[in-house]
Every structure is written in structure tokens, then in C-alpha cells.
């Protein structure tokens, strides 16, 4: 099933979820490696990859959001208390906000730092902010804060998914797994 059902996420939603998840993890590693790399052509290449992947994630997230708004969401298990459902909803909304704000703040850093950017060395990307050290510093602060916010949100997100699976023993994790089959109950 490409589309979502009330029981589980469709193939498109699952693909978006896992592709973006892997890319975000890749960005964590790449981001850490590149800022610690000594100034060299390799460092510049790493930055170009980081920026390219970040903007790719941004476009994937926007497409994912459009797809999600044109689909139903699987229902939460009936056993889930209302506060948990609200917490899950807030966490998911925040995840989307950060996934959009983080590449945008990175884009602002690159614009304010005034480095020309070609996505994957090929697609020219315009600047979205005027050059300036002050703006660059602010955007860098925002980007780093968002990194820590995202780290915390992911800890909550992954922790909750594992709790659903191993403690609550419901379908919440399974229905997002690539090849899991969910029986109707």
C-alpha cells in the first residue's frame, strides 16, 4: 500500500521516514567530522556535502509534509492515555519544525558567510540572506541550538517507539517498520 491506512503507515510515508532518518544520522556524523577537520580542500568538500544533504532533507521534509497532509494518520492505540497522545503529537510537530528550521538556519549561515553554494557541486543555490558577520553568528547559534533540540527530540521519539514496542507491546513501532505486517484487530 502506497497510502496510509488507519492501521499502518503506507510505503511512501515509511520511505520518507527511514530515508530522512538515515540522512539526519548521516548529517550528525558529517557535521561533527567537518567542524573538527583542519582547514583544507577536504573540509570545504565536507561542508559542500553537509549543505547539499541539508537542503535535500529540507525538500524531502516538505514533500513528506505535503504527503502527510493528503493522507490519514494511523490511529493511536486505544490503550494510549490522552496525555501520551498529546505528547506524541507535540513531539511530532516539533520534529517537523526542527527538520525545517535546521536546514533553513544552515542556509542562512551559508548566505551570511557569503560562500557560493552549488548543491553536490552542480546546482547553484541562491543566498537567502545578506552577507554579514552578525547575522552569521546568530544563525550559527540557532543552528547549534536546533541540533541539541533535535537530539533531545530524537531521544524522546526513539525512546517512546521502543517503549511502545517492548513495554506496551503495541503496533506503534511495527507499523512504521519497512517490512512489518500488521494484523487487523
Amino acid at each position, binding site marked *: 500500500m502506497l497510502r496510509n491506512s488507519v492501521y499502518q503507515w503506507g510505503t511512501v510515508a515509511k520511505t520518507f521516514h527511514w530515508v530522512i532518518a538515515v540522512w539526519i544520522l548521516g548529517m550528525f556524523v558529517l557535521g561533527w567530522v567537518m567542524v573538527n577537520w583542519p582547514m583544507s*580542500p577536504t573540509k570545504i568538500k565536507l561542508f559542500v556535502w553537509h549543505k547539499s544533504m541539508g537542503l535535500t532533507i529540507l525538500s524531502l521534509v516538505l514533500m513528506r509534509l505535503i504527503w502527510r497532509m493528503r493522507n490519514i494518520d494511523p490511529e493511536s492505540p486505544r490503550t494510549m492515555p490522552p496525555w501520551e497522545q498529546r505528547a506524541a503529537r507535540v513531539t511530532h510537530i516539533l520534529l517537523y519544525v526542527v527538520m525545517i528550521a535546521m536546514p533553513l538556519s544552515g542556509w542562512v549561515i551559508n548566505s551570511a*558567510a557569503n560562500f*557560493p553554494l552549488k548543491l553536490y557541486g552542480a546546482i547553484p543555490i541562491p543566498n537567502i540572506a545578506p552577507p554579514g558577520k552578525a547575522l552569521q553568528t546568530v544563525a550559527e547559534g540557532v543552528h547549534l541550538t536546533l541540533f541539541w533540540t533535535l537530539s533531545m527530540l530524537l531521544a524522546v521519539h526513539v525512546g517512546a517507539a521502543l517503549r511502545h514496542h517492548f513495554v506496551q507491546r503495541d503496533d506503534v513501532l511495527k507499523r512504521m517498520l519497512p517490512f512489518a505486517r500488521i494484523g487487523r484487530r
Partner: protein
Amino acid sequence: MKKLLVASLLALWTSIGIAAPWTPDPGRSRLGFVATYEGTGFETVFREYRASIQFDPKQLDTSAIEVTVNLDSVDSASTDRDEGMRDSEWFDVANHPQATFVSTGFSAHGGDQFEVKGNLTIKDTTLPIVIPFTWQTEADEARFTGETVVKRTDFKIGTGEWEKDETIGFDVKIVIALILTR
């Protein structure tokens, strides 16, 4: 006293047929270069430089240009990049704060087109370069517009890992647009 000295010097220059040198109006002049980063050009200007231009299209033999550039004043509208360019692998401004150009000869190429040959010194490396330029005078102003391409590695700009052109291109276009008064 100082005024008198200047006046007498001016009188002397005029009497022996050499006019006072032209100097750029800093607010309206531009001296810089265009280099490439990841295949995309970026413009850079120097905020501090001195130029003394003794030029008469009819007296090329006695014409002369001297330019001194404070490399520390490099400005590419990117603080990070400017910092990088000051590093030892690039301009190494700590050890080589200035670049100079001293003309060695001129040639006319019709109308307002000329060429100046001279020695460009950056990082203790002196190499002859040729700069084609246009010379236009209007009222009491002159306009010097020229550009030429140099290879950065000839001047040891970008050493070590930067000696390849994979991120920063070899060709650097020097761009000169001076509005001169005297």
C-alpha cells in the same frame, strides 16, 4: 610653509613638463580580484592601497605606475573567507603585509587602449605581468580600467593541499577600476 613647498613642487613639475601623479579617489575606485570557489566566482576588493599614476598618452616613456596594496585589507564580504586568505598558506599577511606593482613600460593600442608591463610582487615573489587598460580623462578626472589574469600558484598563494585547483581555482582575475584625481 607646507603649502609653499607643494606649490613650488607643482611649479617645478610643470616647468620640467611632468604633471603631478594621479591618485585614486578611494570612495569611487576599486582594486581587487575575482577568484573561484567550488567553480563559482567571488569578488574581492582591497580596502587599503596606494596608487601613484604618472600617465600621459603622449609621453609613454615617462609614464609610470606604482601600486602598494595592504593585503590585510582584503574584503570578499565574507569574514571567514577573509580570515582564511590572511593565513600563511594564502597571502600570509603576517610575514608579507604588502603586495606591489611597479610598471616597467607602456604601449598604446589605439584610441584609449593601452598596456602596461610591470613587476607584481606578492609573498616575495616577483613576476612580470601585463595589464591591458583603458585611459579616459574627463574634466579634471581620469579613469583607469583594466584587468588581467594571473595564476595564484605562481605567487605561492594557496600552498600545501591548496596547490590543487579542486576547490579554489588557479586563475585569478585582477580587476582595477580607478577614478583618479591630482
